[in-house]
């Protein structure tokens, strides 16, 4: 298992385009930022297929979706009471993220972009449970636990998926 370096708590994104080749435009970590408050992230840079039945707003011609096959790498995120550790991680597309509920309380993992189909609810993500998802498309995927935070504050995290390279 390869551990991916912590990006830090604050990620200032320069570009908000969906184009995968612009996803490496993040600043360095800002250790002084409040640890449980989300710094500005793009509203969406994800190009994963939306959940069936969800209407997408009209948008300009989308950039071509670029997906990558699973690469066999797994990165763990510990869901403690009440923090995701590490809060923000950077991975290459094709990497699996494995959330481990290492806390004593129920948690959930919900993408901020509700049109995305990954995540796990509290009934399943009980203490000791694990949940994995392969991120095959470059983008920024903020998420949160709705029990112990909101999309912006409290128990929050982000997966920053870059092109393999």
């Amino acid at each position: 298992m390869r551990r991916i370096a912590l990006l830090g708590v604050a990620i200032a994104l320069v570009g908000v385009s969906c184009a995968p080749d612009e996803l490496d435009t993040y600043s360095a970590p800002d250790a002084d930022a409040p640890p449980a408050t989300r710094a500005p992230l793009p509203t969406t840079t994800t190009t994963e297929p939306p959940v069936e039945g969800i209407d997408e707003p009209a948008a300009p011609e989308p950039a071509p979706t670029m997906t990558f096959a699973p690469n066999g790498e797994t990165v763990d995120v510990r869901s403690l009471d009440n923090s995701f550790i590490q809060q923000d991680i950077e991975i290459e597309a094709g990497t699996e993220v494995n959330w481990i509920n290492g806390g004593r309380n129920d948690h959930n993992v919900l993408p901020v972009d509700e049109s995305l189909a990954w995540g796990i609810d509290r009934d399943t993500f009980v203490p000791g449970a694990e949940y994995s998802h392969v991120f095959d498309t470059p983008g920024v995927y903020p998420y949160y636990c709705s029990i112990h935070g909101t999309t912006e504050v409290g128990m929050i995290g982000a997966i920053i998926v870059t092109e393999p390279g």
Partner: protein
Amino acid sequence: MSVNSKVLALAATGALVVAACGGSSGSDRAEVPVQSGEIPEATEAPEPEPTTAETDPPATEVADTAAPATEPEEIDEGGADGVLNVPDEYPSIQAAVDAAVPGDLVLIAPGVYNEAVNVVTDEIVIRGLEREGVVLDGEFELDNGIRVLGATGVAVENLTTQNYTDNGVFFTGATGYRASYVTAYRIGDYGIYAFDSVNGQIEHSYGAGSPDAGFYIGQCYPCNAVVDNVISEHNGLGYSGTNAGGNLIIANSTFNNNRAGIVPNSGSYELCYPQRQNLIVGNTVYSNNQPDTPAIDVALLAMGNGVVVAGGIGNTVERNLIYDHDKTGIALVPFLEEGANDDLPSEDEWTTECAEQRLEPLADEIPEQLLWEAFDNVIRDNDISDSRAVDIGVEGVGAPTGELRNCFSGNTAATSAPAELEVIAACGAEAAAADDPAWTTSPLNVLQWLVDAETAPPSVDYETAELPPIPDLDDMPDAATAPAEPATDMPRALDVEAIATPTR
């Protein structure tokens, strides 16, 4: 691993475990109430025109529509005077909270409010006009009565929360917080819960019927917080405080008829370990053997104890009245954590503040278990009686008991484990050598607790557990007229030296 399997794993390893264990924004007052948060659909009613109660029925269900004592005569704009009245001016608590600006008072008339209120605005005060009459009721569907997310200086006063699936009042990431004259009754996790929050005060409050703890402070060091004059009964744990300490005082309170009374502990399932430096003083702790409460697994393990320091460091327990416990009045014991998330901090890391420790990466290799020993605690001048095992006990599992540097002096106690505890480990004196046989005379035998937990009366569903009725509790003085006091200068000063040991 499920909770049950964790318990089984604990039993299999034969070691001790005792532990406990969203929103809107708006810095400027909206011209009209803004709906947000997890509010029942009724709160999405059309925005109210500021008017009288008679012509503007509250969107939130209000069973008791008694008019507030300070009914405004004329209102041009809700909250223009810094007081936002619910439901007269705002149909829901959430609407008023969203419209409030720092310094405002959200004043709630008697009634039942089926809301889960999220607070993200700094320095507002949320107050009920009547503690018993203003009821936030989650109806076993909503998660938190009031959840304060990252906002500084928020105070919650003089109201009741009941029937929530998670917490009655929940502060998280707050710098400056206060809960005063708050009742939390029949709650799914914690009654009043301050997590990752500092500079706080919880006072004159009541918690009953939570499977975890009636009162809980977690993940802070230094916490700079005071729990003062609270009553906690019929919970899994009266007070629980994982990894919380540093100028954290629990005083003048009553913890009775829980499974276990006061239980600070260390664990890597929250950040900022180990647990450190609580002052537990002047409390009355009795009959914490209650068999019919809701209870998490660790409450079952800790059952029958008054004060249990489980893997905590540098705590002081003094001048408490403690009696009627099936096991111990006060116990210093290790905490075996299954399913660890990090390795143990070294002793030179025990002074690391939370703000720094939380930024450190987890260990590359994480052991399956951690054994947190209780070091450097001071137990003195307590009045302890009627304990069926021993009044005071200490035991190490991973380290010899005599190497843990805990001390005991001036306690009124009939029994202890080891037997001559105040002789071999008196405060201010050199302790007996770790290999002195006196350390193993009449040992606590804490591993037996694991066996006992297997046969402990099981948890009772918090929704149906038999609870005493809410007692007659003090209201906040002058709730209708007292000015808003945001929690900007917490905790209040407490004259610790003036606190005497309670008497029966």
